[in-house]
Every structure is written in structure tokens, then in C-alpha cells.
């Protein structure tokens, strides 16, 4: 009997995407003792108790059913109220807001709702690992646009302009940025908004780290003049409220796009888990002060880790958002994969190579400061030790 080649039978789109580059490091690090990980892309805080307790209370009262496809009305109302309060941005809770299983799902269905085969999606890089993969899976073509360290990893309209073709349909941005920690100021985003309008693009704006902005006020792209109708705004509770494992996020888009996304969502997810939705309601009603405390702590750690890398003499720009710092390790002569592997083996520090976040991340490593100051200090010592040995 001939052996069946299952690989060939897989969907070409799936075969076209590479597995996440992070996996390898996870496998090595997971077997080691005494690893300090700066490789974790989630808060080290546990979800505030008031949020956890509200979920337990919901379960006790028997909240175990499906919810409306779009999500619980209370949650959508709270989301609408939050945007009104925070950005003076009005969204219709019944027609424009969809509660999803994390931003990951929201991103997937946003792309599937708007892309036709061959449509191009402009993606400033370095960026979150799933942007390009989800684009490919949705039949689109990911067009990376390299953001530069000289420009603090902000993307400019001119850089975007250079990649526009007649197939360009979507611009997918994520600021504050994972992995660089870059933010875009209001002025930066206004220029991008003009660009989007000029080329009549749909903008998908992933604002999951929006609340984790340490300099200036967070900017909501959809709330910029004239941007509401062409923006699919993605956000969730994972980062700001330390709720990664709950898997709850949302998308805000115009009525037509929102209805299209809801259609996909109802056939694939049906609804986000009711327990997570109840917790999310509590997060918006009473979670603010806990969030503020966590953000203040990230900010202090940010200064600590930035100071540490600076003293080591690594070329590193000051991150202004999220909880990552993205130093260049080019001076070591190692490529980022080798650097990450060697430092893990020699010093037991887990980092993520920058190339996992796109070509333009090459020569950098992503370090997360969502970990205690003791561990940050110890990790910095170990990295410095590693560099000293190499420089000798």
C-alpha cells in the first residue's frame, strides 16, 4: 500500500503559512530549571478578584447558557458607554458592536468579512504574529511595510504609500505595538487617516494595548475625524484587565461590516463564553482602579528595563506602550534566533527573537516586562553577563 502524503492534501493556504517562530523557544525553555522568562506576552497579574468573583457568582446563579450572537446586551452597553466616556466616540450597541472570543477571533472574522482572494493588506511590521497568517488564511495577500527604529517603529504615510497597489484594500495596524512598544501619536495617526481616505482603504485597528500607553493619552483610531465608517476597531480585556485566559474581546465597525462579521461569528463561534462576558461586564463597571494600578506598575518596570538595556549599551528605543521592549542585538554579531538560543542555553533567560514578528524585526529581541522587578533585575544581570563574555 502506498503511503498517503497528507501534507499535500492539506489546504494550500494552511501549507503557505509557517508555524509561529515562538514555539521552538517554548519547547527548550519549558524543559529548563531556573529560567527567567521575558518571553511572555501576557500580564503577570492574575485577574482582579472582583472580576473573578463576579464570574463565580454568575455560575452560582446558573448563567451557563448561550448569549445573543453579538454578546450580552449589558456588555455591549458597557462597551458603548466606555467609548463614549473615554473617547467621546459613539457606537451603537445593537448594530455596531460584536463581542468575540478575544481579539484573535475578531481579527480573523474582520479579515474574512472584507477580503476577496488576492486583496492586499498593508501590515506595518514588526507586528503581532497572527496578522499576516490570518490574512493568508482569509485569502488575502499580506504586504509588510517595515517600520524603522530611527522613527521609533512608527509607520509613516510615505512608507505606506510606497506599497499601495490597485489591489490594496485593507490597512491593518496595531498600536501600542507588540513587539516594539511603539505608539502612534494623534498627529501620526491623522496622517495615516488621510492616507486611508485617499486610497479608500478599510482600516483594521487592533487597540488591545490601548490602555497601556505611558506617554500622552491613548488615541482611538476610529474616533479620529471621518474614520469611524472605514475602521474596524478591535479591542478586548486580556491585557488591560489581565484576562488573557478568559478569551473575550470585541469589534466595533459600521453596521454593514459588523453584520457581516456577526454572520461569520454566529456560524463559527455562536457566542463568546457567557462566564467570560459576565466577567468583562464587571471589568468595565468596577475594574478601572485595578487596571490603573497595574498600568502604573508596568510603567515603573518599563523605566527599569529601559534603563538597564541602555546601560548595557544596546541600541534600544524607549517603548511608550504595551509591555515590551525591543532592543537591537546587531552589535553582538549574532542573528536574533541564535542570540535568543544562546542566551537561553547560557544564562537561562527566555526572550523572543524579533524575526518572529516579521522580517523587519530581524536583529532585535522582544523582552516582556510583564514580570516582577526582582526578575527583571536578575534577567538584566544575566543578559549583561552574556554580553560581557561575548565582548571579551
Amino acid at each position: 500500500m502506498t503511503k498517503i502524503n497528507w501534507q499535500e492534501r492539506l489546504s494550500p493556504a494552511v501549507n503557505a503559512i509557517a508555524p509561529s517562530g515562538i514555539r521552538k523557544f517554548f519547547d527548550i525553555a519549558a524543559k529548563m530549571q531556573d529560567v527567567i522568562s521575558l518571553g511572555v506576552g501576557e500580564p503577570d497579574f492574575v485577574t482582579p478578584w472582583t472580576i473573578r468573583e463576579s464570574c463565580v457568582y454568575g455560575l452560582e446563579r446558573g448563567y451557563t447558557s448561550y448569549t445573543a450572537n453579538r454578546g450580552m446586551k449589558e456588555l455591549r452597553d458597557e462597551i458603548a458607554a466606555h467609548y463614549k466616556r473615554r473617547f467621546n466616540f459613539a457606537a451603537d450597541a445593537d448594530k455596531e458592536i460584536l463581542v468575540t472570543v478575544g481579539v484573535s477571533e475578531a481579527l480573523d472574522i474582520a479579515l474574512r468579512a472584507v477580503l476577496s482572494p488576492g486583496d492586499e493588506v498593508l501590515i506595518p511590521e514588526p507586528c503581532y504574529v497572527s496578522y499576516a497568517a490570518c490574512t493568508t488564511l482569509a485569502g488575502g495577500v499580506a504586504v509588510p511595510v517595515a517600520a524603522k527604529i530611527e522613527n521609533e517603529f512608527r509607520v509613516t504615510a510615505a512608507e505606506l504609500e510606497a506599497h499601495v497597489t490597485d489591489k490594496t484594500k485593507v490597512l491593518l495596524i496595531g498600536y501600542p505595538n507588540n513587539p516594539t512598544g511603539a505608539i502612534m501619536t494623534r498627529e501620526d495617526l491623522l496622517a495615516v487617516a488621510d492616507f486611508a481616505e485617499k486610497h479608500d482603504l478599510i482600516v483594521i485597528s487592533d487597540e488591545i494595548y490601548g490602555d497601556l500607553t505611558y506617554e500622552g493619552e491613548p488615541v482611538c483610531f476610529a474616533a479620529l475625524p471621518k474614520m469611524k465608517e472605514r475602521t474596524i476597531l478591535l479591542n478586548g480585556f486580556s491585557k488591560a484587565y489581565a484576562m488573557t485566559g478568559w478569551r473575550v474581546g470585541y469589534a466595533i465597525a459600521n453596521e454593514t461590516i459588523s453584520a457581516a462579521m456577526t454572520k461569520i461569528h454566529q456560524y463559527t463561534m455562536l457566542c463568546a463564553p457567557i462566564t467570560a462576558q459576565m466577567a468583562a461586564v464587571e471589568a468595565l463597571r468596577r475594574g478601572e482602579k485595578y487596571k490603573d494600578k497595574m498600568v502604573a506598575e508596568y510603567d515603573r518596570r518599563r523605566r527599569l528595563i529601559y534603563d538597564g538595556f541602555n546601560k548595557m549599551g544596546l541600541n534600544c528605543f524607549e517603548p511608550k506602550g504595551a509591555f515590551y521592549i525591543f532592543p537591537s542585538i546587531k552589535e553582538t554579531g549574532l542573528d536574533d534566533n541564535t542570540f535568543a538560543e544562546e542566551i537561553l542555553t547560557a544564562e537561562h533567560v527566555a526572550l523572543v527573537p524579533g524575526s518572529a514578528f516579521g522580517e523587519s524585526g530581524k536583529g532585535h529581541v522582544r523582552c516582556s516586562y510583564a514580570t516582577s522587578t526582582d526578575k527583571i533585575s536578575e534577567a538584566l544581570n544575566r543578559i549583561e553577563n552574556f554580553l560581557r563574555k561575548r565582548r571579551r
Partner: protein
Amino acid sequence: MRELLELIEHDARRPVSEMAVMLKKSEYEIENEIKRLEKNKIILSYNTLIDWEKFGSDTVTAIIEINLTPQREVGFDAIAERIYRFDEVRTVYLMSGSFDLLVIIEGKSLKDVANFVATRLSTIEGVTATRSHFMLKPYKKDGIIIGDEEADRRLVVSP
């Protein structure tokens, strides 16, 4: 400087150099600020929270509710002072409600504490009644959960 106080309150052993970076100040400024806070008795002391039970010490803690007859001019203060000067007394609060002072006492044994209440506290002039409650098990003290088993359950590396 509220942020500095919050950092010290949580961990008094944090190096000055680290706090300086975290708060965007120079080490000199931080040191001066701490000195000032100590001098003005805003920072009262640097204590360590110890799980004595785990260490093996078997002291007894009692919470005593005390009713008082307030005195002219000084109210409750003079009697409170007579009470809080005892070494055995760890904490004293003036309370609203059905009693006046809440006193926390530590002693070597039940008998020891009972004896202290009977011979030293109850006999103070102005003390009209005492009710003693012995503490059985501490769950949380000064914001710290004792024997907290909530651990970091995150994957070592994630996107």
C-alpha cells in the same frame, strides 16, 4: 510623594537605585525624600511581616473590645494611652459603634492573655467592660494573604 511611599510600603528593601529609575528621580532625590518622610514621621518604621505560626512560635493573639467612660477634657485619649503603653498591646483603635477601643494583644498563652486582661486592663479606672476574642487562624494580614498559593501559571513563552 505617594508613589515612593507605595513602593516602600510594599517592599522596604528595594534598592534606592531601582526606585530612582522607576520614579524618574535621581538617587540623591530619593534618599533625601526618604529622610524627610522619616523625619516627619510619615514613614514610622520598617517592619517585616512574619508568618510566626509557620516558624513554630505558638503565641496567642486576642482581640479585646473595651467600653470606657470618657473623661472630661481628654475624652478617651488618656485611657487609651494607659493601655497602648503596655508592650503586650500590639494595636489600639478608637472605634464607633457598640464599644470604644479595639485592642489587639499578644501573649505566650491563653492564660497569660486572660490574666493580662483581668489584672491590667479591666482594672483601669474608666474601663467599664471588656470582651475578649481569641484569634484562631489568620488568613490575611496587612494586605498579604498568608500561605497564598496563587502561582504564575503562564506559559514560559507566548506571542
